[in-house]
């Protein structure tokens, strides 16, 4: 009776990735399976490691900046903001109001672009192709704005220490306004496709549940933390870069699952649009760059500059030894820390749900591996 037969279930170990379209880069997960159920998961990362922190110790403060575009390449503008704010604090540089507003505006555009890419690929992974095409349609408009202002679409090198490189080009404000006027209708379109879609609900409700306390224990930040009911947003908790001048809401989830995190990101896009509207309405005139010394040489000291990136708390811990080269720049990568919770979140789910959970964590391997 107890004789093993060919149908007896055995634990099976398989590799998901590194070359797998749904792992958003080169994430490899060693899955331990019992049939279709996941017993355990172990992430293998580092395939994209380029040693950005080591490079930073060998470049001047200004020359470090372009490298941070290439960590989280979906949110290059946010990355630049975090670092630039930190160096400005250390150098005690005053940034003119106009530059502050433009920075907030572009960072929020970046948040929308990043969330659009997330929604597109997340829906595509789960099987909804149409959303992908819709999202890329809007993302393209934002990338055109980036190209107009920064001269690049992806690796933007957006901000400079002390302000901006260039003022807004002619026609920029009109184009930005046109985008945000149209955008709410577009978000409603995504909602029409997904929010009440039965397949979408079946695939996301109750998947990857993680309670608020556990989320804090795992150090989650960004939408995964807020999806678990913790209203922690760095823009609110420790306002930086002029964010205290703008009104916006911080959406919080209740059910701690993939579906709630989806709703939160959609709401965040609407809130970002609200912030952009305010920056455009109140955009002050004046210079775009403060007084910056020729050589950036902060006094001996350290500063932890954190911002709320699209994926969570992005921190730069900059330590200066008084020379023109940073002693250490530690990047606190939000997705590296968020990905740690994957092991816990996939347990007991089906293999197909692993894809949904990778999607809901919104990983970018360039930042995880740095």
């Amino acid at each position, binding site marked *: 009776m107890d004789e093993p037969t060919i149908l007896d279930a055995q634990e099976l170990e398989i590799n998901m990735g590194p070359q797998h379209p749904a792992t958003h880069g080169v994430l490899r997960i060693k899955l331990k399976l019992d049939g279709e159920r996941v017993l355990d998961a172990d992430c293998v990362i580092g395939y994209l490691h380029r*040693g950005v922190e080591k490079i930073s110790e*060998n470049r001047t403060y200004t020359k470090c900046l372009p490298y941070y575009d290439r960590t989280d390449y979906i949110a290059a503008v946010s990355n630049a903001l975090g670092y630039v704010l930190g160096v400005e604090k250390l150098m005690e540089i005053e940034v003119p109001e106009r530059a502050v507003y433009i920075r907030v505006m572009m960072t929020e555009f970046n948040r929308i672009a990043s969330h659009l890419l997330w929604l597109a690929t997340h829906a595509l992974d789960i099987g909804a192709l149409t959303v992908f095409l819709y999202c890329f349609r809007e993302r393209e408009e934002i990338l055109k704005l980036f190209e107009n202002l920064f001269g690049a679409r992806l690796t933007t090198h957006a901000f400079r220490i002390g302000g901006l490189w260039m003022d807004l080009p002619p026609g920029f404000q009109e184009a930005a306004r046109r985008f945000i006027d149209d955008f709410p209708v577009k978000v409603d379109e995504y909602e029409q496709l997904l929010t009440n879609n039965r397949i979408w609900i079946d695939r996301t409700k109750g998947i990857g549940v993680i309670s608020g306390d556990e989320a804090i224990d*795992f150090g989650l930040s960004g939408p995964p933390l807020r999806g678990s009911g913790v209203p922690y947003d760095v823009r609110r908790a420790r306002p930086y870069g002029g964010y205290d001048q703008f009104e916006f809401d911080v959406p919080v989830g209740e059910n701690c699952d993939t579906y709630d995190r989806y709703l939160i990101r959609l709401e965040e896009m609407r809130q970002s649009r609200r912030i952009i509207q305010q920056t455009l309405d109140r955009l002050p005139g004046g210079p775009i760059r403060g007084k910056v010394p*020729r050589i950036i040489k902060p006094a001996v000291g*350290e500063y932890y500059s954190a911002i709320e990136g699209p994926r969570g708390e992005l921190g730069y811990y900059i330590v200066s030894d008084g*020379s*023109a080269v940073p002693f*250490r720049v*530690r990047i606190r990568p939000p997705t590296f820390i968020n990905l*740690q919770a994957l092991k816990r979140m996939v347990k007991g789910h089906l293999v197909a749900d692993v894809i949904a959970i990778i999607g809901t964590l919104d990983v970018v391997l360039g930042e995880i591996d740095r």
Partner: protein
Amino acid sequence: MSEENKPGQPAPEGSAIPAGSGEAKEAKPKPPAAKKPPVKKGPSYEELTDDPLLKDLRQRFPSGVLSGQSFLGQPIYTITLDVLPDVMLYLRDSDEWAFNYLVDLTCLDYIGDERRFCMVYHLYSHKTGRLIRIKARAAVDEMVPSMTSLWRTADWLEREAYDMFGVEFSGHPDLRRILLPDDWLGYPLRKDYDIKLQDQAWIRNHLRIRKVPE
């Protein structure tokens, strides 16, 4: 590298060029010279004097707390390595402070110092909204107590510190490299690891590159 840059700094203050360029102009450079006294020195470390958390820690761990400073408004508490687990446990669980969120864990390498590594912990409290920094120095052969039993965040962060600095953590359940290959030699973020230095043998064997550029 920093040595090369040093001569560049005094240039804005020095008045070597106007002084040598003629008597007539000598009257003009004088007014800026009068403005000199408020020399911008930049921010500096300040001792925390009236900080309730520092007082509380000093009372509970009299020998363990070395200093309390603040830089640009961010408080820094330096403690000894042996009280680190107790201090962290206290900070996390006390009702008053409730630092329930480990924001970041990293390491600094002060090469040449007796206690070479400086462990840096950023803690945040969702209850009070405070962010603090805890520092503890460790020697190369010293084991740093692991924080994995307090916060699960620490798992990968400690693996990264081990990977990049070679800091060993006692009590970590799964201490192995995370970003670099398992059989890599050396710890890249140490200050004596040159940026051009690579594990030549590893590259030759795994990437089939016969001649690795020096």
